[in-house]
């Protein structure tokens, strides 16, 4: 490689790194409000339920009966450890927080990629040195941090409220994993469909199918293998 070529490559690398930072900052600016709300909800709700478990005396027998009710089991899932503050919290809030994170992640992914492109704002962005794959990667990369933050905040809040460390970390990792998956789903549907509404519809269908499969698995004993 000649010196001139090496210099040009280095300059291109530097400018690309700089434009990647700009794209990341732009993406962060577009999602930070929603990200803060989702993270606060995940951590706050989990910590609240752990605290309430400690402060309020629950009737274990009544709780067991309630959890065995097929309708309740279909909604909340099969309880793992109702006698533990962490286990109870995961059973009580897990389904809701999973759906919340899945819906927000997929909608945010389509909004900041397909939505921005549809609105014509990416035309100016792509007139610069940013390529379309770089812009999509940059936006989804920043968005993927949010489930990680929500999962970490949830685990930290549960531990701080008095739940078990291992279980809290596992629950946080599970939430982060679901969020990651739906960032990818939203990112994929945004590229597969020509409009934001169609991409949202496809992503919502995947969320609903996943939820339905989980509910069927939790509610029908013969399909317990789906849990």
């Amino acid at each position: 490689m000649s010196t001139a070529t090496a210099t040009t490559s280095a300059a291109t690398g530097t400018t690309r790194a700089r434009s990647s930072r700009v794209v990341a900052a732009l993406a962060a600016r577009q999602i930070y409000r929603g990200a803060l709300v989702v993270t606060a909800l995940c951590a706050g709700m989990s910590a609240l339920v752990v605290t309430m478990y400690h402060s309020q005396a629950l009737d274990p027998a009544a709780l067991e009966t309630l959890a065995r009710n097929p309708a309740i089991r279909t909604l909340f899932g099969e309880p793992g450890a109702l006698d533990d503050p962490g286990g109870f919290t995961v059973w009580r809030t897990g389904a809701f927080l999973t759906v919340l994170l899945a819906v927000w992640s997929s909608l945010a992914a389509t909004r900041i990629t397909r939505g921005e492109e549809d609105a014509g704002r990416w035309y100016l962005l792509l007139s610069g040195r940013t390529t379309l794959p770089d812009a999509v990667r940059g936006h989804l990369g920043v968005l993927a941090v949010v489930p990680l933050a929500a999962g970490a905040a949830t685990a930290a809040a549960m531990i701080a409220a008095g739940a078990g460390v291992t279980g809290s970390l596992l629950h946080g990792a599970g939430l982060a994993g679901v969020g990651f998956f739906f960032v990818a789903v939203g990112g994929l549907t945004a590229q597969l469909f020509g409009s934001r509404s169609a991409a949202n519809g496809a992503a919502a269908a995947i969320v609903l199918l996943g939820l339905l499969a989980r509910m069927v698995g939790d509610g029908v004993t013969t399909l317990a293998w789906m849990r």
Partner: protein
Amino acid sequence: MGVAALRTQHLSKRYGGLLAVDDLTLQVAAGEVFGFLGPNGAGKSTTIRLLLGLARPTSGRAWIFDIDAADIAAAHRLIAHVPADVALWPRMTGAEVLDLLARIGPGVDTAYRDELIERFALDVTKPAGTYSTGNRQKVALIAAFATRAPLLVLDEPTSGLDPLMELEFRRAVTAARANGQTVFLSSHQLAEVEAVCDRVAILRAGQLAEVASVAALRRLHRTEVAATFTGTPPDLTGVPGIDGLHHDGVAAVRFTLDGSPVAALRALADADVATIAVREPSLEEIFLAYYGQDAR
């Protein structure tokens, strides 16, 4: 001859059954202000998308200073672009948008940017969501000119500007030319093209109809005149400069005026003129008259 600022060779783009750009071969020299004209739907914006590497050609190729237009990272270090419809991030202020565009673009001359903000009278402290079409266009224009990029690709850049700001735009183009920059200007406005361009390409139905100097373009220029009279209209047949003479009823005439208006005005002055309307036809109308109704 040095490296062309912009070059296309047999460039075509097909969208399903529609051939938006058809075998376009074009070359724009460095330092030239080049007009790119054509009626709506002629393929101007598609050509610009191909030049920016934002759409993949069905066949043919395009180069920016001998760099393949598809190599966006390299080619866009030499380009600044103003789209026809400027969409900005509504929560950002004008200053924040300009800063963002400066950081993703090929560089910025901040002193010149500040001067342009003054000249275009843009309040950059307001959120972009409150900007009118013209103000959004000003943001994109200021950002593009402030880059001092070797090639400026401008797509209908003044469609939302008032006449005073159009003059500022022309000044900025003249300054860019003096600075050795190349300007590729897609426009509908004949006056604007006449004022700033060296050469002009005319596109119709995706095909290059003509590449001409502005002097040649002026020969297409016609003024439409409509006059009504209190008495009998004068006989304008054979008056130098008058063409396409029509009588609308017994006391009204319409004609097109080409070249010096002196003879026509003299003929009209001798009659009892009640009203007179002089209209500059749009470039699109001139195209349609010149190339026929199949211009699209």
